[in-house]
């Protein structure tokens, strides 16, 4: 079934600025691990961030489980966001807080203000957090401060945090760009494993084409805001890659 449908999505950062996304359309299905590839500045990050409205689209439609989301505001927008988890390139953890608190913070969309003030998350949440931390292999780090962890460890906390939301879609914004190649592979493998186990589709903005081809089943290639390729990984070949990356100056 179709989890996410994007129709003619357009985005620009200021009213008079250039159009970053020039009409992108595609579909994400329930068992997809979707990759968005393309040269720097093609609009990959913008596209990902339009899905959960961290960036405001300037035109087009986004349908999440057949619900139009570009017009949501306030509480409705928050309810949408808690169903969509996000993993960031720079991890975006709360440095001074413990790993446990960081993972629990993924649950904020489900927690009331008073509980937030006293950080009194319910027992079930703590149980869930512990099992996620165990699954990503960080159980001994529960009480360590987030800034005491290595890059790979921090991203695993980020994975746990995103999954705490019990999301229906995972957005990955260059999750491995800040990690070295060996760790990158481990992290991608972990994400893919957990996404498959929990049956969560993923939409991944990725810079490393090799990783994309290895872990993702479908690919979209962006170039300068336009969609140049949309299809299963098997159909991607060197010629098409050259086309997508034609304008990239190395």
């Amino acid at each position: 079934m179709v989890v996410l449908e994007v129709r003619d999505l357009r985005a620009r950062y200021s009213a008079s600025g250039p159009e970053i996304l020039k009409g992108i359309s595609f579909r994400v299905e329930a068992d997809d691990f979707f990759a968005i590839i393309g040269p720097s500045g093609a609009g990959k990050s913008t596209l990902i961030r339009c899905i959960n409205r961290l960036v405001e689209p300037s035109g087009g439609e986004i349908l999440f489980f057949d619900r139009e989301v570009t017009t949501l505001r306030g509480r409705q927008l928050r309810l949408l966001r808690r169903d969509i988890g996000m993993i960031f390139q720079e991890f975006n953890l709360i440095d001074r807080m413990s790993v446990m608190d960081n993972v629990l913070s993924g649950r904020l969309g489900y927690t009331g203000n008073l509980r937030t003030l006293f950080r009194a998350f319910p027992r079930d949440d703590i149980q869930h957090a512990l099992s996620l931390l165990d699954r990503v292999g960080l159980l001994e780090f529960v009480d360590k401060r987030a800034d005491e962890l290595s890059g790979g460890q921090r991203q695993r906390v980020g994975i746990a945090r995103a999954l705490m939301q019990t999301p229906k879609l995972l957005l990955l914004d260059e999750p491995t760009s800040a990690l070295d190649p060996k760790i990158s592979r481990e992290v991608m493998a972990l994400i893919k494993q957990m996404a498959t186990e929990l049956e969560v589709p993923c939409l991944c903005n990725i810079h490393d084409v090799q990783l994309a081809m290895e872990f993702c089943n479908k690919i979209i290639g962006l170039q300068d805001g336009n969609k140049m390729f949309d299809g299963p990984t098997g159909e991607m070949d060197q010629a098409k890659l050259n086309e997508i990356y034609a304008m990239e100056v190395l």
Partner: protein
Amino acid sequence: MNRAMTPQPGTPQRQWRRFKYPGSLISYGIWLSILVFFAYTVEYLEIPLDRLLGMFERMGSTLANRYYPPDIEYIMDADYLEYVLETIQMAYLGALFGLLASVPLGWFGSFNMSPSRRYVYPAARLITMGCRAVHEMIWAILFVTIIGFGMLPGVLALMFFCTGFAGKLFAEEIEAIDMGPVDAMRASGANLFQIMLFGVFPQVRVAFTGIAIYTWDVSFRAATVVGFFGAGGMGWYLKRNILQIETERVAAILLSIIFLVLISEAISAWARARVMKMK
């Protein structure tokens, strides 16, 4: 003489002068007008430059004769010490309530995290600037006029002053944060309050503590003097003795003020060093 030092034939001669036209003319002109301005200032304020040196001599002799020895017994008196305790309490209550008020003001007055950039942000900034622009003594006098003498106007005056002081610093601190964690909180569906608690406050906590200590410092310094205008504390003794021209007592009171402020500064410098280490 080697070849490098003789000019090659055919290269054009370039001249360099220190005085450039019109650039140098303009900058010398500006310096001159600044000098003229200050000379005019001295003239306008009727400052007797010729008598200045003589004044310092007289100042020295006045200090030696009339202000020395300071009447230490006077300030060791239990009544005075009670006033000193009052001053300390006024200072920290004023700082505390001022800080409590300036946390939301700083939040609303921060461009990146304000709930509404069009209305709430300018309003918060305006309130903070207003509190800051009015000198703490003016606040003290205003409150004394409205409420009467005593410590309540003093605490209120210090509170308003500290709100302005800390509010601006808090807002600037919040504007300097890394927005990454804030994005992460937004992306998970948290509301603005939750984003502030998890995304902003952990980042600014250390800086806020430093600002709080600094605020206490300025509050105490002001608290020692607000009594001069009737708002409670040691300053009242100061005024009384000045009016009665009890110069030795005035000297003693001034010494006690300096002494206490220095202690307070030492404590807050120590506290701030501790806080910096917590980073």
